[in-house]
């Protein structure tokens, strides 16, 4: 039988291997997708998910582009009338201007990888409109307003910080 001190040493040595593996998992997920070394990250994917150490540190790797951001909802009725509504749920409230809400709307409106979130959001918004208005059948459009930062020489020339751009999503049919 192995003496207790020896067992402890073996256990600690095994823990060293786990620690080294954790460090490798932390590191390898940052290897660029196109790199020949990227397959090194594959064995750690489930470990990253299970422990929650999945990460990306691409914050401000480019300058911010927007001076201001706003979003609202255009509601088009079947009879041709239209109105504006807040895009926040629950409660169909106005956009609250927070970083988290901005992340959500730019994700669902502008990023194809968020299409599942967009579909879920539209389902809920249609249901909320149905409850509030007492009928369904609307078409809804997400209307984004960007104040996009101008180039520094242009800002210095006349003091105007940003130029306004508007973007409308395609119209989504609530059905029913």
């Amino acid at each position, binding site marked *: 039988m192995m003496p207790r001190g020896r067992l402890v040493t073996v256990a600690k*040595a095994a823990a060293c291997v786990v620690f080294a593996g954790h460090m490798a998992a932390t590191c390898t997920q940052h290897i660029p997708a196109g790199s020949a070394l990227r397959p090194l990250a594959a064995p750690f994917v489930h470990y990253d998910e299970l422990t929650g150490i999945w990460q*990306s540190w691409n914050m401000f790797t480019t300058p911010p582009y927007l*001076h201001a951001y706003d979003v609202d909802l255009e509601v088009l009725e079947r009879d041709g009338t239209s109105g504006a509504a807040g895009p926040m749920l629950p409660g169909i409230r106005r956009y609250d201007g927070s970083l988290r*809400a901005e992340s*959500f709307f730019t994700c669902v409106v502008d990023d194809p990888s968020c299409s599942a979130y967009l579909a879920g959001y539209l389902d809920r918004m249609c249901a909320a409109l149905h409850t509030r208005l007492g009928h369904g059948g609307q078409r809804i459009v997400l209307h984004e307003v960007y104040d996009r930062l101008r180039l520094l020489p242009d800002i210095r020339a006349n003091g105007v910080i940003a130029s306004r751009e508007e973007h409308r999503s395609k119209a989504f049919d609530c059905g029913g």
Partner: protein
Amino acid sequence: MKRAFDFFWGPADPRTYALVRIALSLAALANLILLWPVRDEYFAQGGLVSLAAARATASGGLCGSVFYVVSSPTGVTVVMLVAAAAMVALCAGYWMRFSAAVVWLWHLSYSGRAFPILHSWDALLRIYSLLVLVSPMGRVWSVLQLRHPRPADADRVPVYGLRLMQWQLVVVYVTTVWLKLPDEYWRNGQVCAYFSMSFYSLTSNSTFFARHEWLSAIETYLSLAIEASVPWLLWMKKTRLVGLAAGLGLHFAIAVTSTLAIFSMCMVPGYLSFLDGDDIDRIAGLARARPRAQTLVDP
């Protein structure tokens, strides 16, 4: 082999773990307080983020979330209250291992429930709460020690948890510098001018840095230099306090000029993980010396 063994199992001052635990708890609590008013928007059924979409995003992987099961507004409120209580308990050093587990589960859960709203500080909280959970806890600076102090409370503990936290901070900075360096705006020093007029800034209507672009260039290059050097400054004992001052100074500046104060708060535990017993004594000595110096000059 022995060096590798000592790298993880060498002795550490338990006060360092206590500092990280307290800083992490406070940052986690601040983040939870910010999420509290919008909990129904992001975590409850009927909010902005569809549960089915969150499950679909996580399917095939091992991401889990309490919010896959709890989706009513009341349930979400209860989960957040339990998480807040765990953060307070972890900060106070009460039921530490259990509290750390709850805090880690909270961070896993909200991250898994609302992917589109996540930012870098959410990842910091998730990762450091795991590392605190698996680290030696000790009784230093806890309610338990306050009520029943023991001579063994100050005994050295294994350093492995701090090593993993230090490694994480190195990865954060090496990665971000790697990604920033090729960008032309970081290279020409204009990033801080644009940042100061962006919606992240608290003074976004001021064109000061656009009109004084040389100041933006100094600020941009200085922040890059700090980000590139901080891991190494913190690693070497001789330069550790310089690294601490430079890094925390950068994050203090971010906190007071932008809407990203929570991000700065979440960076603090990583910095504290580099301190050893001597550093803590030196900082405590500096803090004690200051009031005494004031007393000497006061009439």
